[in-house]
């Protein structure tokens, strides 16, 4: 969006005024959601259990979980498309759970939403899709047209304004979806698996656009995904959802560099390859007779030099047999698996020394 045209969706002009870092934008308190079972004898399904969550104004908050973990339900509680069975949902200054459907509709107009399958209106042009929320909000025609043009310019699709959705590629459709979601200049954007239907390259484009929405427009973004790569690319903080419960919350680096739960570790295991899988471990055991220890790589100056020195000092031979180092939020993360061999007790003292030095290590089970 060029500065000459007088961008209306700059942070300073957001309806909520200036963004306050750390200010809570969305809060879920003890939220439970149970769906009635299908049919007369259906068993009620619990989708969310005792969920507490705090999303700060201006951040990109990721919610990661496998399918069926309750992500979609959680996201829809934030704009009131779903109502919790118990607990409170607060968005901006509103307590959604205290409002009726009419009140929730009002709040929804300040919350944008993008979808995995884009959900564009086939009966409308690209411009018509973006204009829809503005019509709902009752904006006059001239102003609406200006706003639609600004948004299409922002997502780089101004030249496709009069095309219909079926004439666009997947990535372009999602950009229209994002423009539509931003039409009313919301302070909050919900992204429901926004890149899951796209190929890797297009995924990158859409994620870059979401980043721009967050950084340039100051919009708080809550995104749900089952892909750690999406979280790594855009999220500041993350919650891991497993079987309807939030099992970990924190900065993306903290949660995935040192996962404390099995659920979080499963995601890092598949993407970061920081620990050998049981099958790999079995092969390593067959090939190496020494003790196998995995060290978590940390964002610390001279980390590996210290590791090497410790091993040398204790006359322990250390052979890297597995591992990988990648980046999370521009900081190194990963794991290195060593085969350690040395005189009696030397390995134990070396490991004790490393632990004393604050090194996070896991002795792989026999």
């Amino acid at each position, binding site marked *: 969006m060029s500065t000459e045209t007088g961008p209306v969706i700059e942070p300073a002009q957001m309806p909520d005024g200036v963004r306050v870092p750390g200010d809570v934008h969305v809060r879920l308190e003890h939220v439970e959601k149970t769906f009635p079972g299908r049919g007369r004898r259906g068993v009620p399904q619990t989708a969310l259990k005792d969920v507490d969550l705090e999303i700060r104004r201006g951040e990109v908050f990721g919610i990661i979980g496998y399918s069926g973990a309750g992500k979609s339900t959680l996201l829809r509680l934030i704009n009131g498309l779903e109502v919790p069975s118990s607990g409170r949902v607060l968005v901006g200054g509103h307590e959604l759970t205290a409002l009726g459907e009419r009140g929730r509709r009002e709040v929804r107009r300040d919350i*944008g939403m993008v979808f995995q399958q884009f*959900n564009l209106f086939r009966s409308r042009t690209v411009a018509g899709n973006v204009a829809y929320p503005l019509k709902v909000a009752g904006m006059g025609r001239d102003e609406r047209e200006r706003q639609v043009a600004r948004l299409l310019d922002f997502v780089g699709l101004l030249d496709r304004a009069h095309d219909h959705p079926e004439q666009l590629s997947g990535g372009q459709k999602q950009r229209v979806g994002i423009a*539509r979601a931003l039409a009313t200049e919301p302070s909050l954007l919900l992204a429901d698996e926004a890149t899951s239907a796209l190929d890797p390259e297009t995924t990158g484009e859409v994620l870059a656009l979401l980043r721009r929405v967050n950084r340039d427009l100051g919009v708080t973004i809550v995104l749900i995904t089952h892909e750690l790569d999406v979280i790594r690319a855009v999220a500041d903080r993350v919650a891991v959802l497993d079987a309807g419960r939030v099992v970990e919350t924190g900065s993306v680096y903290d949660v995935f560099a040192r996962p404390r739960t099995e659920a979080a570790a499963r995601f890092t295991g598949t993407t970061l390859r920081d620990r050998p899988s049981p099958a790999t471990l079995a092969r390593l055991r067959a090939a190496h007779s020494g003790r196998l220890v995995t060290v978590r790589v940390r964002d610390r100056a001279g980390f590996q030099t210290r590791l090497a020195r410790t091993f040398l000092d204790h006359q322990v031979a250390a052979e890297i047999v597995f591992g990988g180092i990648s980046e999370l939020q521009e900081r190194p993360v990963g794991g290195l698996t060593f085969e350690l061999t040395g005189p009696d007790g030397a390995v134990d003292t070396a490991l004790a020394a490393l632990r004393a030095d604050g090194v996070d290590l896991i002795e792989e089970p026999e």
Partner: protein
Amino acid sequence: MHEFLTNLAVYREAIRQTFYIVLISVSVGGLLGLGLGLMLYATRPGSLSANRPVFVLVNLLVNVVRPIPFVIFLTAIQPIMLHTIGTTIGTNAVTFALSLSAAFAVSRIIEQNLLTVDPGVIEAARAAGARPISILVTVLIPEALGPIILGYTFIFVAVVDMSAQAGLFGGGGLGDFAITYGSQRYNWPIVYITVATIVVIVQAGQFLGNWLARRALRR
């Protein structure tokens, strides 16, 4: 053929009556059916304005009326006709009955076509803060417009068909003309000319419907 020409005025009047009956029935029945169909769609469990009692009631009404053959339906509603339009015979009586009958058929067509609209699109409209009534009018109908137009075309043809029975109640029209002036007098040219006329009317309607639907679907 000579006999047809002497009855040309009657033939013209029959065409006029058929158009009168069909156009009014399709318009009035179409509008009533649209309302009924939207109601069926919106009130069904899990839908935009789910309301079980209303849904069950309307659904039952439609299911009860729809299987009644038109000739019997027309007779059955004679008391209602007397109250509302003051007569039970003639063109207006037939048009009244046909409008009602068409409305119930249209309601199902509307309901069915709305049900095929992608729920994701409805969710997008809800997420934008749109009210249910606005979603019905500005999202659901436009999204299903192509098949809805084809549905109305189907109803148009069905109404032309049913309008042939108007003669039984003094309603006139092409069906009546074909029987009274044609088959009952063993005057086959009149029968065939009338049949051809009906075929032309139906074809024209079908052509228009297809053309409009193609435009709505952009295919």
